[in-house]
């Protein structure tokens, strides 16, 4: 590990964090989006606002409160320490949890929109043909809203790669543990190592551009299909 270039190490940490975050986000974001799309209670507005909060808050605010909660002085941090024997704040787990909260709206919102657009008509039709809820999700919901799942996962991943404030607050700058690309970039700039800063910056710009282009490319024909089928139905 010590022989690896610190920036490569930061890249690996970033990919690990973003990958794990995306998996967790898809697992909790999908049922949450489903619940929000189907629910009619008044609490819905509040939950929607809560999910969207990271869009408007400075990441440092979220980071600050998470830092408090993760510290051994507070119950969550305490429980974590009892269970794992390690401090939660300034750990890899901390930045993953922080990223999940921070990127949640990027996953929940496109999924919720897709589920709302899908409506109940096809699901009722599938139920009348003997398909259980589980069956309906995998044979109707998933294939029809596939593009939105790809969008949600990509946006969740890309946004996690690009985060800075939350990681800085709760992760600090531990190489191989919490030192991600955005932090490494900040370090280089502080040290006036602009050449190295350029390498990281331009790589992030290009890879983000490629990823976003791919999302839009994937979404375009799929969305056309959806409107087409809507019209005919």
């Amino acid at each position: 590990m010590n022989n690896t270039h610190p920036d490569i190490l930061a890249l690996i940490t970033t990919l690990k964090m973003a990958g794990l975050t995306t998996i967790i986000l898809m697992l909790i974001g999908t049922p949450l989006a489903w619940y929000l799309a189907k629910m009619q209670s008044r609490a819905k507005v509040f939950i929607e606002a809560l999910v969207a909060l990271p869009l408007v808050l400075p990441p440092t605010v979220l980071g600050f409160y998470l830092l408090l909660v993760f510290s051994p002085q507070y119950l969550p941090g305490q429980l974590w320490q009892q269970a794992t024997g390690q401090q939660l704040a300034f750990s890899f787990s901390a930045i993953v949890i922080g990223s999940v909260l921070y990127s949640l709206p990027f996953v929940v919102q496109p999924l919720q929109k897709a589920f709302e657009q899908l409506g109940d008509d096809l699901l009722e039709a599938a139920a009348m043909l003997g398909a259980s809820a589980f069956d309906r999700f995998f044979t109707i919901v998933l294939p029809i809203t596939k593009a939105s799942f790809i969008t949600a996962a990509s946006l969740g991943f890309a946004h996690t790669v690009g985060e800075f404030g939350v990681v800085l607050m709760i992760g600090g700058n531990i190489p191989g543990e919490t030192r991600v690309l955005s932090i490494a970039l900040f370090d280089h700039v502080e040290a006036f190592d602009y050449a190295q800063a350029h390498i990281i910056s331009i790589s992030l710009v290009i890879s983000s551009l490629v990823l976003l282009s791919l999302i839009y490319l994937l979404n375009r024909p799929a969305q056309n299909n959806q409107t087409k089928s809507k019209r005919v139905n």
Partner: protein
Amino acid sequence: MAELMPELMPELNLNFTVQHDDFSLSIDEKISLTGITGIFGHSGSGKSTLLKVIAGLEKQANGKLSLNNDELLNSEAKLFVAAQDRNIGLVFQNSRLFPHLSVEENLRYGQKRNKNSVLKFSEIVELTQLDKLLDKAVTQLSGGEQQRVALARAILAEPRLLLLDEPLSALDDKNKIVLLALLTKVKQTLNLPMLYVSHSLNEIQQLADKLLVLSAGKVSHHGDIHHVIHQLTTNHDILHQTSLSLTVKEHLPEYGLTSLALGEQQIFIACDHEPNTEKQVRCIIAAGDISITLHEPIESSIVNHLHGVITVLGKIGSTDGRNAQMLITVNCSGQNFFVTITTWSTKRLSLTVGQRIFIQFKANAVRSLR
């Protein structure tokens, strides 16, 4: 016999209420499931809600529901069988085909999920004339084709009961006739009980053997189709009309006419094709299209004239007597015909109950949706 073998008498037992903010449905009814039962009512009468309760798509229903002694809903016992476990089919107003699947995949969706499937895929495809469309995307289909796929898909799932919720309402007249003919064929070929909901009495009259009428969330009539239509006619609930099922006697292609037997008399209907498979023809004659003469109108261009006896003379219209019309029931060879004429004509002809008269109507006045 029926009591000894209840499984031979498929029956739907309904005893429930549905309460929404602005609407309530309260049903206590037994529907014996043979052939097609039409469910008629104006919009807001609760007919779609009734179907949803039977299908298991309406979770607000309170009470009991059972199909062939198999309990599907019992609120007291907190029993609610989910829609997918009821083995009941539903054809919706909009076809609701799965846009990501081909026609064939749509058709097989329900069949694959029925473990006791016995129907042959190819036979149903042939019956519904979908063989040429199997590989198509459902988005490429016309409205009529989509509804045919939806019907075939529901049939292939082999439900115990097929519900049809205004399946023709989104179609143009030409496609309506095609699908009605198909439904008639399905009824003759498969032993599949159906409940057919529609706000169009014409559609129901063409298909159903029995008719259940919903009005403001309650059952107002339930019985033999022609009998109920005549009840509605005498109650002035619908456009006054005579509803008939008659046997084909003879086809006269050179005149574009078909004659139907009514006892020893006959009725001519306009029919440009041989009514090949059907021996029985359903027809409706609006009461305003029939007139009464005292003598047989042998020198008339009007082809249909039947002799009969006046059994009822009833007044319709405003109570102050102005613009009042008479609804006259005439029995011709055992069949009641309903005729509306003005009170003035009634007086002029001095019509009385028990009088022997003739009714006449054009072949074109006999409406039959085929």
